[in-house]
């Protein structure tokens, strides 16, 4: 598989804040690459740099092995932050502008194809300003697919959508993914990312914490849910070890991550040796959310 994107030591700072620190990643053809991180972790800054609208302080990136040429972006469909269109123009006129910029052949056909795909064909002559947020997001997705690009870059594509809108958007993205296109997606919705992505990068405060396949990311540590009468003492014990860490604290229990080499019996013994008897200990089925919380804690 050929490399679609490589970044090397990307760095961006705003006055005193480092928004992105030494980011080096690569995305290969056909991957669905999830960019995860809490607010302010540098996801949008990263995508902004890759899409030519934010200037990096240091570092380089290359699309399709072709450097940072403006032409590269014609082969990338992108939705960054919010759908941006001319509010006084209708859906077709807006897409005509995009088609001209991207040199789309047979633009009329292409516009009809993408508008039908996102279920906006019936509203093709409605002005953008009359669209609901869900419709605006769908138009943005239609616009990103207009030139039938090899890569889609989607930044929080379900932002502000209601549950039905989220389901529709997820279904659309899943369909596009099935066509074998490379998708780079930044999202808070970890469940969605887990369902869709083949690869994940986890960021926090502008730094890349983990990157790899979904399996690699999720099989690093085991997770256990434990219960005890005195959770404060349990925490003290955990804090005194270097192979157990707290991931989450739901009411009356603790979600902990433990090194792979320790069995449940080993962990139970650690607490028993300190005079703490756990009332509950069970293996927690790992998902991306718990893994994410473990990594960014």
């Amino acid at each position, binding site marked *: 598989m050929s490399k679609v994107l490589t970044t090397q030591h990307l760095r961006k700072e705003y006055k005193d804040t480092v928004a992105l620190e030494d980011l080096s990643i690569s995305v290969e053809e056909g991957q669905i690459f999830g960019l995860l991180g809490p607010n302010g972790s540098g996801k949008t800054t990263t995508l*902004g740099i890759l*899409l*030519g*609208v*934010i*200037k990096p302080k240091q570092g380089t990136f290359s699309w399709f092995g072709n450097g940072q040429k*403006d*032409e590269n*972006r*014609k082969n990338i469909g*992108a939705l*960054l932050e*919010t759908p*941006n*269109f*001319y*509010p*006084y*123009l209708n859906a077709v*006129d807006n897409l*005509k*502008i*995009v088609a*001209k*910029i*991207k*040199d789309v052949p047979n633009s009329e056909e292409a516009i009809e194809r993408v508008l039908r795909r996102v279920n906006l064909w019936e509203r093709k002559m409605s002005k953008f300003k009359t669209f609901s947020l869900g419709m605006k997001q769908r138009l943005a997705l239609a*616009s990103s697919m207009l030139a039938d690009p090899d890569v889609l870059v989607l930044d929080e594509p379900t932002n502000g959508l209601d549950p039905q809108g989220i389901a529709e958007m997820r279904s659309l993205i899943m369909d596009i993914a099935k066509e074998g296109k490379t998708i780079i997606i930044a999202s808070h919705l970890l469940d969605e990312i887990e369902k869709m992505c083949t690869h994940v990068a986890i960021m926090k405060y502008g730094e890349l914490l983990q990157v790899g396949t979904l399996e690699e990311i999720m099989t690093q540590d085991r997770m256990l849910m434990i219960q005890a009468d005195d959770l404060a003492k349990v925490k003290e014990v955990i804090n005194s070890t270097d192979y157990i860490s707290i991931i989450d604290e739901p009411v009356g229990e603790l979600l902990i991550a433990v090194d792979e080499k320790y069995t449940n019996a080993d962990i139970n013994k650690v607490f028993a040796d300190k005079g703490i008897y756990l009332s509950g200990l069970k293996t927690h089925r790992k998902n991306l959310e718990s893994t994410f919380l473990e990594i960014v804690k």
Partner: protein
Amino acid sequence: MKKLLAIEFAKLKKLNALRVILLVYIGLSPLVVYALYSFFDTFMGPMLKIAGIGEWNPFAFPDVWAFVTYSSSFFNVLMGVIVVIVMTNEYNYKTLKQNVIDGMSLKQVILGKFFVVFFLSTIVTLYTFIMGLVYGLLNSESADVWNGISNIPVYYLQTLCYFSFAFFFATLVKRTALSIIFFILSFIVETIIGGILAISKLEMIYAFFPLNSFSKLTPFPILKEMVKAAQERSGNVPFMLDNWVNILVCIFYMVLFFLISLWVIKRRDL
């Protein structure tokens, strides 16, 4: 180039603000030109005779060209507002950012807007030419159309200069209302500075100020004759740049405003 023109035209063709301002311009400018003519005919005619300048019919060839270009120049501020709106809309709607994401280069973005400026200047100049031609043909005994026609290309340059100045403000400020306020304020501020410089006997410096240079491209039609008459009476002559020097100064500013705009856009994040 054709592609950029098509893109910009697609953005402009349904922009209501453009339609309204253009309609106001088309409807109002002949009336304003005629009102100014009536004013000069009624009040200035006798004064010119007293000053020894003689008869002057601003609606007859060849003077009509100087007169319509001078009168129309007042509308350059209004048309400059269109340039501000067109550019700041791109920031407000974040479409400038989206155009770049979709594959345009920053140079193409600026070039596209330069075409808008060029297009508006062409429309305004053509309309002014037609106005001059109609008024001239209706009020002249001879059809000496080409005498004094050089005022038209100079007026064209003037519109380009004013619009590039408006574009520069829009790029710098990004907000529509603020850009329009600053654009209009700049005329007042420059005039005040000019006044202060004149009092301090530093008119020569003021002659090189951008808006003053632009306005001097289409001076009051018989300004030179009036200055000459004043000179004969008092010996005091206000400092004026030679026409060609003034044209070069204006071209310098126009290019400068576009280059600074490009530099600003290239330098900052979208």
